[in-house]
């Protein structure tokens, strides 16, 4: 480091013209920054809820309540999917234990909030602590058993969790009414805000992770364990990390789910079963396992599309399984022809559009050498 290095930066060699274009560039750059994208996304989500509440007060329906609650649960499942994207897309670890992990969070929330009457933040921390333990456990298992076998083992583990939770309490009567959140008593709107905030934080952390040496190390581990190990990447460390993160995300989602449901009587076996794990997997595959936005889109297709927009279509309300059929069909098509999922489709579209623009330019000005 020398002082001339700084002095050379002093000389103002930019013409006013460059300065002008620079300001536009800086806006573009800011929009490309993931953090600002997430903040904009969050603002849109919160604005939707605010509009809906406004409609409630004015006694008109701007946005239907069913739409908002479907959006809320979609966002909750998005948290799980993002964790799963870290696990499948980056670490190459296929897990079918997701339902069990969400169940842990849900049960922790139930016991903390209803039976023990502790603040919600303690419930979240408790759920995280439990899920870290489980994540470490699964991580150790993944060191001994790999690939296709791991999916099956985690499936077995999910069964263990399901039966264990059922043995602890077969049916749970959730009735959360007295929890203070953001200074007011809990209701669907405040929980929704909490969900948006937590989701945004998770998205930000995940995108930081995957663009850092940690994410690269995970990718290396996924592609070639021997190269990864030869260059100092400890399989144990990163597999544990991946599992701990994904279980934590799932558990957080479970806590949010309980708080969002608020009052219902249900049991573990109806809440989270194999179908949940498969749906999350499907969401991640459809969206593209390596892109956060793709995963969000996938989750939306799996969980949000029919209750949010298609709830009025008569055919679908009469045949509720049609949407399952459709998603199955979609999963098969995506894996057959676009293994990168929707994210890959968008990428291909972008390339095609830019090629089209280039062609148009060439037509106008002629080909360059």
């Amino acid at each position, binding site marked *: 480091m020398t002082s001339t290095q700084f002095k050379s930066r002093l000389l103002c060699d930019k013409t006013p013209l460059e300065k002008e274009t620079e300001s536009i560039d800086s806006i573009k750059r800011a929009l490309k920054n993931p953090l600002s994208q997430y903040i904009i996304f969050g603002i849109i989500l919160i604005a939707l809820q605010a509009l809906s509440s406004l409609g409630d007060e004015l006694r008109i329906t701007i946005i239907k309540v069913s739409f908002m609650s479907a959006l809320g649960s979609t966002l909750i499942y998005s948290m799980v999917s993002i964790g799963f994207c870290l696990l499948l897309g980056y670490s190459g670890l*296929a897990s079918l234990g997701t339902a069990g992990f969400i169940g842990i969070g849900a049960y922790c929330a139930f016991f903390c909030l209803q039976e023990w009457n502790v603040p919600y933040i303690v419930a979240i921390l408790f759920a995280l602590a439990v899920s870290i333990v489980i994540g470490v456990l699964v991580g150790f*298992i993944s060191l*001994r*058993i790999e*690939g*296709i*076998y791991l*999916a*099956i*083992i985690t*499936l*077995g*583990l999910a*069964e*263990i969790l399901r*039966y*264990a939770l059922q*043995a602890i309490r077969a049916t749970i009567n959730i009735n959360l009414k007295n929890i203070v959140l953001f200074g007011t008593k809990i209701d669907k709107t405040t929980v929704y805000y909490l969900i948006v905030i937590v989701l945004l934080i998770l998205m930000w952390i995940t995108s930081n992770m995957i663009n850092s040496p940690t994410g690269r190390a995970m990718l290396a581990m996924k592609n070639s364990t*021997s190269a990864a190990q030869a260059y100092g990447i400890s399989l144990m460390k990163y597999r544990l990390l991946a599992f701990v993160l994904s279980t934590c995300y799932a558990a957080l989602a479970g806590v949010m789910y309980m708080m969002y449901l608020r009052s219902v009587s249900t049991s573990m076996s109806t809440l989270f*079963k*194999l*179908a949940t794990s*498969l*749906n999350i*997997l*499907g969401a991640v*595959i459809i969206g593209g396992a390596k892109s956060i936005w793709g995963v969000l889109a996938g989750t939306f297709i799996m969980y949000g599309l029919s209750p949010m927009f298609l709830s009025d279509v008569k055919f679908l309300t009469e*045949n509720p*399984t*049609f*949407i*399952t*059929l*459709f*998603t*199955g*069909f*979609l*999963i*098969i098509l995506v*894996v*057959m*022809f676009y*293994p990168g999922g929707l994210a890959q489709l968008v990428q291909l579209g972008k390339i095609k559009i830019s090629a089209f623009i280039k062609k148009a330019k060439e037509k106008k000005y002629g080909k360059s050498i």
Partner: protein
Amino acid sequence: MTVFDNLASTLLGSLPSISVLVLATLAVTLIFKTSYTTNFAQGVISAVGSYLVMELMLFYRVPMYIGILAGITAGILIGLFIDIVIFRNGRYVNAIGKQIITMGMVSLLVGVIPFVFKTAGLEAVYLMPMVALNKYVVLSKNIAIQINSLVYFGISAVIVTVVFLLLNLSKWGLGVRSTASNEQVAGMLGINTYVITAASWAIAGALGAVSATMYAGFNMMSNSLFMTTIQVNAFLACILGGFATFYGPVLGAVIIPLISALIGFTAIYIPTLSTWREVLVYVVLLLLILWKPQGLFGPRAVRKV
């Protein structure tokens, strides 16, 4: 009742589960050996078969054996459909991709079943009392065995024997074994791996249909995913026995219900265990698998760098 009586009756009680699980496991193993993937749709394919049987018997008054034959045919057709239409036409399908496609098949079939079958709307029905649910063969003063279980076990044993004979003696069996060890080399040696794989899928579908029909005889068909537990157990049985051999998974499929029965037997004396029975079964399985990741009957593999 003596301890021996209790033990004997719990063990005999696991016979139906063993017979069902063995068939399901054999199907999963066959597909794993030829397509290098775990078929998550196995349970739903079987469910389609059993729903068809039920539909034919309840609404069309078709005799049972014809119904079962139709169920088997449905299983075979779906198996062939997955292999020939989906797997062969995919552009980028690898092992994990195949696995996920079968998961997609689960969603697809779960969506299809209520459209096609009227019976899917009925809740909690038992299918096909083979002989009679309440007929017993009395073995001793305290031990009796359902005739159904014996019939199931017989069917299952016959089918397993036939499949093993086919595997070891027939040309198809040789093809399966060589495809299992190396698909490309097998292909180069003039074995038509396509036919082999398709045949395996067909047989797996048939096995599935039989197993689901049998399972529906002593368990409820609550919804189209009623075979899930059996399927999960079949996968675990495969890993427990080791995918390396054909007999390993089958033995694994015998072991799992036995473990369950043994835990059930201890639960007679320690009542709190009964709530935790399933948990304990899976924990034991998990520990066994962790102890020998290559399977109880599989060889150890050395990683090449």
